[in-house]
């Protein structure tokens, strides 16, 4: 666990924020950064490490979000069981999407399209089924308490998000430094060569999508606890899928910290663009689009890759 000290430092450094500021705006923003950093980390387990670019992580996020909401509202379960169920439901969704695409060797844009299709089908189902509250959505009763995973102040949610983000970092670093991580990288770089060396490409891609979906489902369940309201567009809409992949790509898919950095940059940028345009709808998406074009054009390895290239130049080596 080479990254463990860095993760520990990150968690400790982020811990005292609520004591340093009482600004609700800052805490909200920081919570959203952590939320999207974790969602990006989930995407990166599959997209960055295994090179399987999903365009439909909303399918897993939304499944997690709805699973805990339904468990609490329809079945009267407590929020902790709901949270665990959310992860399980998202993993099941991951198994479905993974089997449907990897079993038939779908790669590249075909895989991306299949994931997008699954998310869209989920959105349409959520929009028409009674159990998901159809188009009206689901509203959880406000009742702060640890057993309900609801907090009276913003600090509680911030720390909750920090725990989630730290958990995501630990999971990603464990995978990265394991046999699974090596095999995922091999499949990403050249699937046929990996198979020739005894790597069961289907099995390792399945493991990646299950972990990725589970973590994304946990983020979805957190979202439900944070806003206590869900509708099909919030849970399964394409903007969730875009946010999931944008952070890692902007921050850098090759690094553990890429998704965190990317989420921070994008959330700050979104906030700034909203402020500058007086809160125009979609202003943040326009800003994201510009950043994405610039990053992909000039820094395909993301912000972290940019720093590494500089450092390598300074040492007088290439690559």
């Amino acid at each position, binding site marked *: 666990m080479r990254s463990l000290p860095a993760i520990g430092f990150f968690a400790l450094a982020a811990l005292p924020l609520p004591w340093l500021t009482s600004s609700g705006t800052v805490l909200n923003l920081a919570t959203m950064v952590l939320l999207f950093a974790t969602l990006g980390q989930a995407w990166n387990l599959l997209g960055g490490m295994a090179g399987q670019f999903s365009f439909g992580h909303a399918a897993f996020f939304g499944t997690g979000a709805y699973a805990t909401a339904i468990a609490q509202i329809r079945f009267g379960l407590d929020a902790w069981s709901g949270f665990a169920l959310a992860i399980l439901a998202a993993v099941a969704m991951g198994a479905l999407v993974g089997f449907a695409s990897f079993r038939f060797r779908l790669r590249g844009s075909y895989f991306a399209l299949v994931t997008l299709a699954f998310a869209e089908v989920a959105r349409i189902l959520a929009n028409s089924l009674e159990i998901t509250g159809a188009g009206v959505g689901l509203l959880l009763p406000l009742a702060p308490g640890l057993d309900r995973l609801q907090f009276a102040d913003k600090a509680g949610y911030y720390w909750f998000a920090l725990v989630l983000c730290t958990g995501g970092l630990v999971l990603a670093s464990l995978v990265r430094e394991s046999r699974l991580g*090596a*095999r995922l*990288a091999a499949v990403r770089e*050249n699937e046929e060569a990996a*198979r*020739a*060396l*005894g790597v069961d490409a289907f099995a390792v891609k399945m493991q990646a999508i299950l972990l990725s979906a589970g973590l994304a489902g946990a983020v979805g369940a957190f979202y439900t606890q944070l806003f206590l309201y869900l509708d099909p567009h919030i849970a399964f809409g394409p903007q969730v899928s875009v946010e999931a992949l944008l952070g890692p790509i902007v921050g850098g898919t090759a690094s553990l910290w890429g998704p965190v950095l990317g989420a921070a940059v994008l959330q700050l940028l979104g906030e700034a663009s909203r402020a500058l345009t007086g809160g125009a709808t979609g202003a943040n998406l326009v800003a994201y689009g510009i950043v994405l074009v610039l990053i992909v054009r000039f820094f395909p390895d993301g912000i972290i890759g940019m720093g590494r290239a500089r450092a390598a130049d300074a040492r007088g080596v290439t690559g």
Partner: protein
Amino acid sequence: MLLEVEGLSVRFGGLTALADVTLAVAPGEITAVIGPNGAGKTTLFAAISGFLRPQAGRVRFAGREVGGMPPERLCALGLVRTFQVTRPFAGLTVRENIAVAAHLRHASRKAALALAERVAARVRLEDRLDRPAAELTLAGRKRLELARALATEPRLLLLDEVLAGLNPAEVAEMEPVIRGLRADGITVLLIEHVMQAVMRLSDRVWVLVGGRIVASGPPATVVRDPAVIEAYLGRGAAERLLREDALAGGA
């Protein structure tokens, strides 16, 4: 016999790439498959190693029927191949490349990295361990192919033209490495274009022409086989050579 191929046929649409190919590889030997371009050598490797499903025929490895098995399972059983057109994991370092293969029989990261280092030293890549594989020269990439295959700790190693494209000095460096495999109990089946190297390295040669086996035997016998000479030098070449030999002998 460690590997037995019996009546193997592969067709791509109307084109017959392999027709009723039968060959065997004895354990502990270096066996070569030679043949002119387009003879079906790489297709034969693909069919043996599970990358291609033959239309007919059987493949037995270590007494076990393995036809139709996917490559990753064959690799786990101890049958591994290299690629003629090298396929390095370009974004990874040399060490990480070899470690992927080492992980086949070693779950721990530490053990896999240690094995990767030992294998790299064996093919003389030890000074490039932390360089990205994308930086390697052709000779380096061929060595990396061999190193990764070795790191899976195979019983049978299928080498697809690991000497092709190398200069004579590089070939001379690679030869003892391949010969050393036999000493370690690894059986080798190789496809090669560099004839001199095949003659020096192999115990037995199978000649594939137009998807069919036309000759087999020890290398010294096979090169004098008229069918082989014709395949390489064209129809009537064997007769011509014999005549020239006779003339030269008479003079």
